[in-house]
C-alpha cells in the first residue's frame, strides 16, 4: 500500500477516523457522567457537533481525490459516479444531522455518541458501496451500510412501536441481503472471479446461471430501494423512526442501491444491458402505481411521504429503464431533486411533530396562518415532489420521461404522467389543510434554529434547481457519460 493509495482513500479514511473519535467521545462522556462533575455538563452533545464538522471536512476532502482513479487492481474506483454519490450521501447526512441535533428527547442527549457512531459507520458503508467494483467488497459495504440503519431505527427503544418497526426493517433487510449474496454466488460461479469487470455481458444465449444470479440480485436490490413488490417495510419503518433520520433513510440508502444497480447492470456492458429493459420497466410501472395509489388514503403524513417516496423510486426506475447515458444522467438529476424535496418535507414534519405531538395530516390545519414561512416551505417541497414547474421536481420528471421517450417507451411515460396527476391530488390535500382550513390553535409552530437552517438549505436546493437546472444537468450528464464510454 503506497502513499498514493492512501490519498485516494481519503474520504473513507476520514469517515473511519471520525467514527473512532465519536465512539471515544461517547466513552469519555459516560465516565464523566458518573462523576457528575463540571465535565458532565460540558460534554453534553459534543458527539453531534463533532460528527457535523467531520462530515463537512470529509465533503471538502472528496474534492482532493483524483477523479477516475482506481486502486486494488480495479476493485475500488473513485470515478465520477462514486464521488457524486459520496457527496450526495455526505450532504444529506449533514442536513439530517442539523435536524437531529435539535431533538431534545432523553435518549438523544444521553446516548448521542451511539447514534452518531452508527450514522458515520453507515456512511462509511455507503462510500464503500459507491466505489466497489468487486463482489466481496460490495457485499461487505452493503452490510456495513445496513446494520447501523437497523440500530438507528430502533434507537428510541422505549416507545411501543419502535422495536416492532426496527424488527420488521431488520427481517426484510437481512432476507434481502441473503438474496443479494445468493445471487452473487452464482455470478461468481459463472465468472470465476469476483471482479465486476470479469462478469460476462448478459446475453440471451448466455449462461443461464448468470442470468438467474443477476435476477436474484435484482430482487434483493429491489428490497433495498423499496421497489414494488418489495416495498412493504418502508411505511412502517418511516412511521416509527425519528423524522430527521427518516429523511436521510429515505434518500441515502436508496441512492446507494441505485449506484449498485448502475454498476452491476449497466456500466461497461454496452447495448447488452438492454436485456434488462423489460424487467426494469415493469418494476418501474408497478412501483409508480402502488406508491401513488397507496398514498391516497393515508392519514399520517409520514406514511403518506413513505408511499410517495416509493412512487418516486418508480419514476427513477423509469429513467434507469432507458438504460442509456441520458437515462442514467436524468435519474441522477432526479435523485438530487428528490433528496432536497423529500428531506425538506420530513424536516417540516419534524417541526410540526415537535410542537403538535402528532404526525396526522390534520395537524397541518391552518399552518399558513400560524407559521406562514414554514407552510410556504412545505408547499414548495410538496410542489417539487408533485412536479410543478419552476421547482426542482418538474425538471426531474420531465427529463426522466424524456429519456424514456428516446427509447420509445411511450406506454410507461403515459402511465407516469397520469400518475403524476394522482400524486398532485394527495400532495394538494396537505396543502389545502395548510392554506384553506382554519387553524385549531393560533400560536405559531416553534422551529428550532438549526432545523430552520436545514429547511432553508432544502428550500434553496429545490428552488435553485427549479429556476436554474442547467449546471446540475451538465454535472449529471458528465457523470453518466463516463459510464458509457
Amino acid at each position, binding site marked *: 500500500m503506497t502513499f498514493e493509495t492512501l490519498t485516494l482513500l481519503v474520504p473513507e479514511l476520514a469517515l473511519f477516523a471520525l467514527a473512532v473519535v465519536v465512539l471515544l467521545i461517547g466513552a469519555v462522556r459516560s465516565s464523566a457522567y458518573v462523576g457528575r462533575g463540571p465535565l458532565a455538563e460540558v460534554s453534553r452533545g459534543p458527539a453531534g457537533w463533532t460528527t457535523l464538522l467531520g462530515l463537512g471536512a470529509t465533503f471538502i476532502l472528496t474534492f482532493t481525490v483524483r477523479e477516475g482513479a482506481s486502486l486494488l487492481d480495479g476493485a475500488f474506483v473513485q470515478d465520477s459516479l462514486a464521488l457524486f454519490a459520496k457527496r450526495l450521501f455526505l450532504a444529506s447526512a449533514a442536513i439530517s444531522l442539523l435536524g437531529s441535533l435539535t431533538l431534545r428527547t432523553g435518549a438523544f442527549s444521553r446516548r448521542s455518541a451511539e447514534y452518531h457512531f452508527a450514522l458515520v459507520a453507515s456512511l462509511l458503508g455507503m462510500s464503500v458501496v459507491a466505489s466497489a467494483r468487486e463482489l466481496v467488497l460490495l457485499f461487505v459495504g452493503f452490510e456495513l451500510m445496513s446494520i447501523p440503519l437497523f440500530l438507528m431505527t430502533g434507537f428510541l*427503544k422505549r416507545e411501543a412501536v419502535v422495536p416492532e418497526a426496527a424488527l420488521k426493517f*431488520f427481517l426484510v433487510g437481512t432476507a434481502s*441481503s*441473503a438474496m443479494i*449474496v445468493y445471487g452473487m*454466488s452464482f455470478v461468481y*460461479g459463472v465468472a470465476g472471479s469476483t471482479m465486476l469487470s470479469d462478469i460476462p455481458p448478459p446475453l440471451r444465449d448466455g449462461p443461464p446461471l448468470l442470468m438467474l444470479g443477476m435476477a436474484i440480485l435484482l430482487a434483493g436490490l429491489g428490497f433495498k430501494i423499496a421497489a414494488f413488490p418489495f416495498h412493504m417495510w418502508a411505511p412502517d419503518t418511516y412511521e416509527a423512526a425519528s423524522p430527521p433520520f427518516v429523511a436521510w433513510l429515505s434518500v441515502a440508502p436508496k441512492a446507494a442501491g441505485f449506484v449498485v444497480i448502475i454498476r452491476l447492470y449497466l456500466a461497461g456492458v454496452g447495448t447488452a444491458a438492454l436485456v434488462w429493459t423489460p424487467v426494469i420497466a415493469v418494476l418501474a410501472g408497478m412501483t409508480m402505481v402502488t406508491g401513488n395509489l397507496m398514498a391516497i388514503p393515508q392519514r399520517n403524513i409520514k406514511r403518506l411521504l413513505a408511499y410517495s417516496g416509493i412512487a418516486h423510486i418508480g419514476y427513477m426506475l423509469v429513467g434507469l429503464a432507458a438504460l442509456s447515458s441520458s437515462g442514467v444522467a436524468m435519474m441522477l438529476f432526479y435523485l438530487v431533486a428528490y433528496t432536497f424535496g423529500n428531506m425538506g418535507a420530513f424536516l417540516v414534519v419534524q417541526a410540526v411533530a415537535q410542537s403538535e405531538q402528532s404526525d396526522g395530516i390534520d395537524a397541518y390545519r391552518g399552518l399558513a396562518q400560524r407559521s406562514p414561512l414554514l407552510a410556504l416551505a412545505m408547499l414548495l417541497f410538496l410542489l417539487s415532489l408533485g412536479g410543478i414547474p419552476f421547482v426542482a421536481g418538474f425538471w426531474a420528471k420531465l427529463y426522466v420521461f424524456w429519456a424514456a421517450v428516446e427509447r420509445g417507451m411511450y406506454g410507461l411515460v403515459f402511465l407516469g404522467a397520469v400518475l403524476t396527476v394522482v400524486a398532485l391530488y394527495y400532495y394538494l390535500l396537505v396543502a389545502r389543510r395548510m392554506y384553506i382550513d382554519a387553524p385549531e390553535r393560533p400560536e405559531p409552530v416553534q422551529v428550532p434554529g438549526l432545523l430552520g437552517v436545514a429547511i432553508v438549505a432544502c428550500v434553496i436546493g429545490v428552488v435553485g434547481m427549479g429556476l436554474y437546472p442547467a449546471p446540475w444537468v451538465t454535472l449529471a450528464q458528465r457523470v453518466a457519460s463516463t459510464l458509457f464510454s
Partner: protein
Amino acid sequence: MGLQAYLTLAAVVFCIGLFGVMTRRNTIGILLGIELMLNSVNINLVAFARYSGDVTGMVFTLFTICITVAEAAVGLALVILLFRVRRTVTADHLDLLKG
C-alpha cells in the same frame, strides 16, 4: 458427485429458509430461516470455488460467515428489545403499525 448436486442442495436449503421466513409466526423462527438462506450461499460459494480451483470463493465464505454472525447479534438484540417492551415475539401480534 458433480457441481450440480451441490448447487441443488444449496437451492433446496435456500428455498426451505425462504419458506420459513414467509410462513413462520415466531420471529425467532424467521431469524432461523434467514440463517438457512445465508448458509446455502456458503455451500454455493465453496462448491464453485472447489470446482473452479479458485480460492476467492472460500475467502468470500469467510466474509459471509462473519457478517451473518453480526446480523444474528443485531437480530436477537431486537427480538429481546421487542419482548421487553411488548411481552411477545409472535409476528401476528406486531400490528401497531398499519395502513
